[in-house]
């Protein structure tokens, strides 16, 4: 595990900056940030392009991609485009822009990729069920004191902490405790 990362912003300062961005979102748009919804739209559009017949039969997909206008012309998609640009810019500025795979010291790259995919799949299912992710529910819903968002937040930490021991091989150095 790392102790202090050189070059990373102080977490409280980063959080403060993020909070200001979130506040600006509230006053400019009347709502907070989002991420998973944008990914969901894109997934839905891909599905609809590949198999439009299946979309017709799915109430969920119809809601997702058959609304008025182009389903990709929604704020979530523009926002995640911005997220990637912002991450890219920060990566350049901080010299962290290079192809690599982050993984714990005890596993190989292949294992890490499989775990990333599996974790992503589980997370993808979970965020659709919860109607949001850390950005939209925990951060945005949390700041406006939505009860469901706070319940979500605690569940996320609960699920992660409970599983952490069992998947420690993915992340920790030796010393199984």
């Amino acid at each position, binding site marked *: 595990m790392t102790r202090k990362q050189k070059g990373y912003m102080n977490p*409280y300062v980063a959080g403060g900056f993020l909070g200001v961005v979130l506040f600006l979102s509230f006053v400019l*748009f*009347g*709502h*907070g940030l*989002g*991420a*998973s*919804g*944008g990914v*969901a739209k894109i997934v839905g559009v891909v599905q609809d392009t590949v198999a439009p017949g299946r979309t017709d039969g799915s109430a969920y997909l119809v809601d997702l991609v058959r609304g008025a206008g182009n389903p990709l012309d929604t*704020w*979530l998609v523009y926002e995640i485009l911005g997220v990637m640009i912002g991450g890219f810019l920060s990566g350049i500025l901080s010299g962290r822009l290079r192809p690599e795979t982050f993984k714990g010291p005890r596993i190989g790259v292949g294992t890490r990729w499989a775990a990333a995919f599996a974790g992503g799949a589980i997370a993808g299912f979970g*965020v659709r069920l919860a*109607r*949001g*992710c850390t*950005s*939209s*529910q925990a951060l*945005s*819903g949390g700041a406006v004191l939505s009860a469901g968002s706070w319940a979500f937040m605690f569940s996320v930490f609960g699920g992660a902490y409970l599983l952490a021991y069992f998947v420690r091989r993915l992340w920790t150095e030796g010393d199984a405790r």
Partner: protein
Amino acid sequence: MNRKRVAALVAVAAAVGLLLMGRPTVEERVSARAPELQSRLETRRVHIHPAELLDVINNYNTRLRIVDVRDESDFNLFHILDSVRVPWARLQDPAWVRALPTHTVTVLVSNDERRAEEAWKRLAVQNVPHLYVLEGGINGWLDLYGEAPTGAVSSGSAAGHAAGDDTLRHGFSAALGSRHPASDPDPLHAPRVEYERKVKPIGPTVRKAGGCG
């Protein structure tokens, strides 16, 4: 550590400050947004003609709630059938506002328009949707559907009552409330009047933008 302490103190102070200041009341929000609310009222887009209200009443597909904001004495003399009288304080009770049924057209009525418009402002800042004011108020309604004046009423007279002083102009020999014939005019025999349709149809649930759901 010192900077963290300062930040922590600022956060706590900010929170305590909020606690002491309290949230803006409905009245304060109405004052803060007065110009915008006033200009919306001046477009007359939320004032509906009594004939339109009668049509909405008789349209079984539209859920309707007529909120009467007059004094109890006026209400007891005459009110439109199925309208509800709401004391002024209730308009600012968040629990009452939250409990209002959804997908329902709400029409505010007073004798003329002034009180209904003030009620409209208070409900508008609390985001009550599908909110309208009866143009010409009860006075205008009775001009059109009441017995004494004949049915020869021009649609202009409703607007003429807008500037009225919100007192009930019509006289009643007894307090009939909603048992008065004009409380529930017979659409087949009521005077047909042209009006500009203003009530917007209530679509399926319009989800506000926001969140990943």
